């Protein structure tokens, strides 16, 4: 891996170089009831809009690779039959300026199931492969349990990763394009002092992790506690609204619908992201619902994230960003749910 350091004012120059492409980054969208800024990812036209010291965005960067609604195909329908047209809905590369390690890891996890498994999904791959990602280090929020999930640092899945050293940035370079870019700004190889600052920044961050999830033997515990009354208690609280899946950086479940145009000559097939907490998730034609209770659906969500995905891909689907807990209207957080299932209230 190649490391470089550059002065803070050079970052604007880096943005300027990349601005010939579409740049997406964290921006302030408003204020919450306590007056704290609310951040989200959006297209950035001016470097000053970028809020690189953001805490956490409300939504994950998922929508740029998995749009909430997406047209999969369109049909030209006539009396003699139909013709299908497929459009991947991706036309140009996208620069992500300032993504935290958890979100980078979330994309890596989505790659496992959507790009590297049987039937790779071209709609996802087309968008994912055309991302240029600049990661940035973060200060853990109270809800972050990424350390427990092993996703507090990103090893791959980005082009450039920046760590704030006070007056400059420590850059980790993973792609030739990123290396070429850094050559166009004023940067130098890290000195012993830079290295010391880098280590100091990393160590300082460690103190801030407060939320924890005990993951040892979690797959087995979840299996053994399948009938645990804890699930019913959480099910009682859960509103089955699907907000958790909405903000989750790794929830990828969807439903497909088809529509006919009013003139009956065209039709379209659209995909919308769904949530396993919604009541109709596993309901089949004829009315049978395989998960009729909110407890069974909430349980399934934890099973998929912390057991099923581990079984299939050797790692959990959860990155510990804590967005689901922060957004939950019923204050259900993964650390609490898992602790209660483990019998540690």
């Amino acid at each position, binding site marked *: 891996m190649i490391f470089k350091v550059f002065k803070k004012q050079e970052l604007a120059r880096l943005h300027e170089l990349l601005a010939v492409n579409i740049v997406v980054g964290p921006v302030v969208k408003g204020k919450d009831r306590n007056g704290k800024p609310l951040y989200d990812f959006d297209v950035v036209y001016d470097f000053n809009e970028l809020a690189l010291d953001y805490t956490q965005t409300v939504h994950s960067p998922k929508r740029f690779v998995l749009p909430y609604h997406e047209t999969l195909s369109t*049909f030209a329908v006539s009396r003699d039959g139909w013709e299908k047209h497929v459009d*991947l809905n991706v036309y140009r590369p996208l620069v992500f300026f300032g993504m935290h390690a958890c979100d980078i890891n979330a994309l890596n996890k989505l790659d496992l199931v959507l790009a590297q498994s049987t*039937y790779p999904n071209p709609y996802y791959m087309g968008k994912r492969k055309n991302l240029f990602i600049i990661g940035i280090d973060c200060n853990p929020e109270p809800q972050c349990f990424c350390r427990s999930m092993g996703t507090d640092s990103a090893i791959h899945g980005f082009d450039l990763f920046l760590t704030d050293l006070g007056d400059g940035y420590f850059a980790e370079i993973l792609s030739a394009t990123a290396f070429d870019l850094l050559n166009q700004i004023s940067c130098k190889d890290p000195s012993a002092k830079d290295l010391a600052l880098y280590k100091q920044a990393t160590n300082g961050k460690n103190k801030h992790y407060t939320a924890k999830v005990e993951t040892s033997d979690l797959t087995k515990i979840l299996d053994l506690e*399948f009938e645990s009354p804890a699930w019913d208690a959480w099910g009682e609280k859960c509103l089955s609204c699907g907000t958790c899946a909405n903000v989750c950086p790794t929830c990828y479940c969807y439903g497909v619908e*088809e529509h006919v145009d009013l003139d009956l000559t065209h039709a379209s097939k659209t995909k919308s992201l769904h949530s396993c907490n919604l009541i109709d*998730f596993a309901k*089949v034609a004829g009315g049978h619902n395989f998960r009729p209770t909110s407890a069974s659906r909430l349980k399934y969500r934890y099973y998929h994230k912390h057991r*099923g995905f581990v079984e299939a891909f050797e790692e959990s689907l959860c990155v510990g960003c804590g967005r689901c807990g922060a957004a939950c209207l019923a204050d259900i957080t993964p650390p609490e749910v898992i602790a209660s299932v483990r019998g540690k209230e």
Partner: protein
Amino acid sequence: MQNKLHFIDVLGKGAGAHRKQDPGSFEYTLPAEITSIYQLTASEKLYQIQIIDPEQRNRFSFKPGQFVMLELPGIGEAPFSISSSPVRRGDLELCIRAVGNFTNFLAKVERGARVGITGPFGTHFPLEKMQGQDILLIGGGLGIVPLRSPLLAVLENRSRYGRVDIMYGAKTPTELLFTYQYEEWRRFDINLGITVDKADKSWKGRTGLITELLKERIAQTASLRENTYAIVCGPPVMFHFVCKMLTEAGLPMQKMFVSLERRMHCGRGKCCRCNIGSTYTCLDGPVFDYWSVMNLKEAI
């Protein structure tokens, strides 16, 4: 403009060449035509569907137990078990009950309609392993539909298999499917046992649960341990009782197969709607051996 990033076209020339699965095939539907429709009962119809392009039709191959996604452009797409023999390739037969939005629309469709077929998807019954062995085919209600494909495959090579028993239960005699084929099946030395929950005036056959039929069959042989395979398909409650009886009769778990039903939106292990815990019914199923099912929470 030197920093304009290079656009990568994932479906471009050579992009998928090194992949086991070509991403271009993800949303590819084979144009097909409904060539004939038979009304089997009040709510079920048998649709004969032919892939239009002769080359695609011959290249289409599936194994008994697999399913296809049937698409009516603009109306929807849904998964259906294939009921025809694998020898007939892209000349498919799908038995469909009008029960939801898609199937109720399909029930109004006439012969000659252009539909789309994607697939085949999923796992299949291991008929090659079953050669030389006795086979129990146990179906309840619509469960007979996925059993018809392995049955037809067995009939075509009848001498390769031992004793074959079909046990089929329906709610009423009017709901029995494929009645016109029972005589033909019997001619092929198949023991066909049929039972209904509620008889009507014309019904001369058995009344009662399918487990009664199974009990009699089990009593005829000393043990099912050595040379028997079973395929079970039906409503969840039937799985419980039938699989339990078969296990008690000595049938090893890995020789008992079930075909499960779940909601599916993609058939390709992407939409998660058919997940049972970690398992995709569309990729790892719909055919599971009983051991795998026992290991899955909330499967049956």
